[in-house]
């Protein structure tokens, strides 16, 4: 086995376990990702995908194991704005009275002073990010008046404005229009070239084959992990989904 140099990995999760009041949500999970890699996280609802994300962002504490982000602790990754989390559309209150501009500005909060007063550089970062997701015409639109795709792009812009080197995306393609899907896939290629690392959860098997260099199949623990071409086999998928054949998985949410 090769000697691991932590500096080479953006994400390094070793035997991590998470439980909620004694109920195990994830155990003995491992993941290593390098700069420029895109990894698909595939599993059933309740298989621990969101828990995995929560552990990486530090939103829940792990009960066992070790997580290194760019060779450092999760805590210092938080301080350095290293990880950006793009929630699924259902995970946010779309009726919250807040505009596109304000949401994207939240990407800068972590590096502002305590009153969160935007500096010139913050304003510029927000402008650039909104331009990259093609929402410049909607700067002051309340998020409740956006389409699902536009809302998704708003949160992508927040991640861009944050200048994170790791992006965690929860179901980035669910409930979006063709235009947004195209824009997201273009952004993925740009992120890859910029050396960002992407971990995305998805139900859509086609997207995994299309975008992901690597795939992580989980069902409370890692079922299989590796190059998509090698690991993303019907047998592994069947195991991941508890014996259900892959053919029945191409429909709506399982």
């Amino acid at each position, binding site marked *: 086995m090769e000697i691991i140099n932590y500096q080479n990995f953006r994400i390094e999760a070793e035997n991590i376990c998470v439980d909620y*009041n004694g109920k195990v949500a994830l155990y003995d999970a491992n993941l290593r990702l390098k700069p420029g890699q895109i990894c698909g996280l595939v599993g059933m609802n309740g298989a621990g995908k969101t828990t995995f994300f*929560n552990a990486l*962002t*530090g*939103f829940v504490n792990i009960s066992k194991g070790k997580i290194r982000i760019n060779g450092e602790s999760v*805590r210092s990754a*938080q*301080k350095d*704005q290293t*990880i*950006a*989390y793009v*929630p699924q559309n259902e*995970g*946010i*209150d779309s009726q*919250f*009275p*807040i*505009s596109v501009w*304000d949401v994207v500005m*939240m*990407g800068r*909060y*972590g590096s502002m002073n*305590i*009153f*969160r007063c935007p500096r010139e550089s913050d304003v510029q970062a927000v402008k650039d990010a909104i331009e990259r997701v093609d929402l410049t015409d909607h700067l002051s639109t*309340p998020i*409740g*008046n956006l389409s699902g795709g536009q809302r998704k792009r708003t949160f992508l812009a*927040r991640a861009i404005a*944050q200048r994170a080197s790791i992006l965690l995306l929860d179901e980035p393609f669910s409930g979006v229009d063709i235009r947004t899907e195209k824009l997201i896939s273009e952004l993925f290629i740009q992120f890859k070239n910029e050396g960002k690392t992407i971990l995305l959860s998805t139900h859509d098997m086609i997207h995994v084959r299309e975008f992901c260099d690597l795939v992580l199949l989980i069902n409370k623990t890692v079922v299989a992990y590796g190059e998509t071409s090698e690991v993303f086999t019907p047998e592994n998928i069947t195991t991941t989904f508890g014996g259900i054949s892959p053919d029945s998985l191409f429909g709506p949410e399982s």
Partner: protein
Amino acid sequence: MELCSFLTLDSFIKDPLTHDFMRKALLMSSLVAAVCGFLSSYLTLKGWALMGDAVSHSVMPGVVVAYALGIPFSLGAFIFGVGSVALIGFIKQKSRVKEDTVIGLVFTGFFALGIVLVSKIKSNIDLHSILFGSPLGISLSDVKQTIFISLLVVILLSIFRKDLMLYCFDPRHAKTVGINVFFLHYLLLTCLSLAAVVGLQSVGIILVVAMLITPGATAYLLTDKFDNMTVISVLSAIISSLIGIYVSFWFDLETGGSIVLAQTFIFLFAFLFAPRYGIFKLKKLFDGYK
């Protein structure tokens, strides 16, 4: 306080101001309303209406114990308010009972304890003024306490305005970028307890939750901008307080109830006629005429 047949709007407003207790009541209630209105935006967006109800009822034994011991009643109320939340969290975590059940169970327990204590201690505690508020009979030491607590809450909310908004909107992002979510959670709870303490002087323990949720709910129907929501919430709370006190003065009605009723009417007005989110969607109507 006979209602004169030749009463004009001018004397309707000015006559009560000749009384010292009325000036004090109007000022204090406006201040309390402003504080509760400010907090109200956060509570309604966070979905903490039931939590507000719980905390405001749970302060009851604290008030009674504080009166009996001769310590500032706000201190006792604060301890029991935060204590109730801690107990709710503990029971929820250690049992399989659902959260709303635990909340209902804990706050009624605290409230009952307060009532039993009042009957046992039998000092000069006025149960009626605790339950229904007494803005007209507010004492000087109460005035000082109210001003101090109100300023404290306003300062805290002002400093952490944006962080609290982020916490209500997307706590996961807040945590991811290194913002202390644990601190914000307890900051909001602390402000809630303190606001409940000052609010109960105006409208009493039973109705104080209205001060904490109705202005925010009204504002939520009227705007899509968070800052505007806060301003509208504060203004509607202050206006309701003034209307409530004037109406209770002239028509000899319970003051706390009048204030809350005024808030409810303003909410109903917004519910029916809010430009975008009202039943009659006035904006569409006007746009149609253009």
